[in-house]
């Protein structure tokens, strides 16, 4: 058990995957010589050489399109889109090519690629460098979407993603890169599609993913002081998400709050809430409350950005609303 930073755990997963499989290659803007805009890929060029670790031109559409061709050709490319916001340029390659190849070619091939990309606000990066767009990808059949909340999960989920035959969008909340966490010595892959119970509780189920898990846990602490026992579920994987796991918790607590940093409207939480309002309807004793960002872009001004981010107080208030 070693303490590691979230970003380092990702670098470690990349290094271990590259060591274990010569078909794993890495490319993206400034990932090789500079070691990545957030330092995540530092050292990989030296360890694995310029054939397998490459800096690319500033050409997002082609980075992802090339990953599709490389994956069909037998490589396991891990590409980086420097900020999730830039995926707007590469959506065709992600959605019309990577996601559909297996299906539309009748199962002839898989597209074993991973697209790593940081999302999230809180670092003063402004409206075009802070968005959480994972709901776009979760809506697309053929994609898998993962979003870890801590270093150990980041390691294990990324190992699984790289070995996975399907294209995986691997979303990293940039405010977590420096966060410390334990990484077990012999950490292994973590299966996609299964949630982690981050904290057990009896009164209300709080579903979250990525950095919002920490927010939910902080809220749970505050609520515990008031005698409210919140169960916090870390989704880990957004597509597929662990419907059975959420339902099982709901059957115990009968109350549901869903938290994420993405804007609330039409976000990932909508699907979870909608699904529980159907298959979980009989379990529900209270309105399903979502906590997400307000319907606005991230502003540059630090005070507005801070007010924008959904915080523990909001989560606690949402929980209290389900207990009214």
């Amino acid at each position: 058990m070693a303490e590691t930073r979230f970003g380092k755990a990702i670098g470690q997963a990349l290094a271990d995957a590259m060591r274990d499989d010569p078909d794993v290659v890495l490319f993206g803007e400034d990932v090789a010589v500079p070691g990545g805009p957030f330092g995540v890929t530092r050292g990989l060029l030296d360890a694995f050489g310029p054939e397998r670790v490459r800096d690319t031109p500033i050409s997002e559409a082609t980075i992802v399109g090339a990953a599709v061709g490389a994956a069909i050709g037998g490589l396991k490319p891990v590409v980086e889109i420097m900020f999730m916001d830039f995926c707007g340029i590469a959506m065709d390659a992600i959605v019309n090519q990577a996601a559909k190849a297996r299906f539309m070619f009748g199962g002839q091939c898989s597209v074993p690629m991973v697209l790593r990309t940081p999302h999230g606000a809180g670092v003063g990066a402004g409206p075009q460098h802070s968005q959480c767009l994972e709901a776009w990808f979760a809506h697309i059949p053929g994609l898998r979407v993962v979003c870890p909340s801590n270093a150990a999960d980041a390691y294990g989920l990324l190992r699984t993603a790289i070995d996975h035959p399907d294209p995986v969008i691997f979303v990293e909340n940039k405010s977590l890169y420096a966060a410390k966490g334990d990484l077990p010595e012999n950490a292994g892959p973590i299966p996609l599609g299964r949630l982690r119970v981050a904290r057990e509780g009896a009164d209300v189920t709080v579903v979250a993913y990525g950095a919002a898990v920490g927010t939910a846990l902080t809220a749970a602490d505050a609520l515990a002081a008031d005698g409210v026992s919140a169960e916090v579920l870390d989704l880990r994987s957004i597509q597929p998400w662990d419907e059975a796991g959420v339902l099982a918790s709901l059957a115990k607590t009968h109350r549901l709050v869903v938290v994420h940093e993405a804007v609330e409207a039409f976000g990932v939480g909508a699907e979870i809430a909608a699904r529980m309002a159907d298959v979980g309807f009989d379990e529900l004793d209270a309105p399903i409350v979502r906590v997400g960002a307000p319907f606005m872009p991230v502003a540059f001004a630090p005070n507005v950005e801070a007010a924008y981010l959904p915080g523990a107080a909001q989560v606690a208030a949402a929980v209290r609303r389900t207990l009214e």
Partner: protein
Amino acid sequence: MARNAKGGDAASAADRDVELLELYRRMLIVRRAEERLSQMFADGEVPGFIHLSIGQEAVPVGVCAALRLEDTLASNHRGHGHALAKGLDLERFFLEVMGRAEGVCGGRGGSMHIADMGVGMLGANGIVGAGLPIAAGSALAHQVRRTGGVAVAFFGDGAMAEGTLHETLNLAALWHLPMLFVCEDNGWGEFSPTSRQFTGDLIALAGAFGIDAATVDGNDVAAVARAASKVVAAARDGCPQVLRCVTNRVHGHYEGDPQRYRDPADLETLPNHDPLRRCAAKLGADDVAKVTAEVEDRIAAAVAAARAGTEPDIARARADVYSPCEAAHG
């Protein structure tokens, strides 16, 4: 004006009758398959949007003559020729465009997404310009995995306006990818002449990236094959290449398009440029007749067999959205 780039056409080794006959045979397979499709589409037997490459057969056949089985190609919406020339089985071709379960893509792709990974045909593509980066990625796989293979991107003149051309030229040059860019310049993008869409010159563009580029008479299959064998060899050595093939689209953009927007006088001259006619003129009439009979038999047999295909099952299709290792959600 029908399009017919000047290209040296002197007799050479590659023109030897037997090879030319083989090229003719391959072109005729594409031609007869598409003529048959055209009829079947009119009869309602083939559904969807189909884009025929009648008049352009010399390009895929000439280029693919220079390729090996392990070489790969990424195609566009007009991909029948690329698929058949790379070796896709005729029967599974018809099954696919008819939307049958036994089709090469299980009937899920149809004409616009036909692919056969077994012969390195990475897929027709419904998105203009999208095949270019895919081919670059395939070339990267050849390079890293030391397959010795080359990846080819077939794209139209209309596709030149997409930014992916620019980005892919750059990447191919930067990484010395074993990649060949083949532009099928038929003068049209859908219902608009390319001259009203694109002001660039492909040869000069490639040159701006330090990429060798040549124009060839895309209606002369021997000329295409000769040029291809040269550029494929160079690409194999890590010098990406551009080959522009000037040719003609004879049918509409898709079947059912009456081409009212085209000059009738222009359409009338098309037969003079027909790559099959031009090729046949250099072959013996007996050889042509024999090949024709043989190809027609093969087409008839493939169509007959394809007609026995069955409807795909939605549950099986759905099971292929994700790899079988885990159940898909939803």
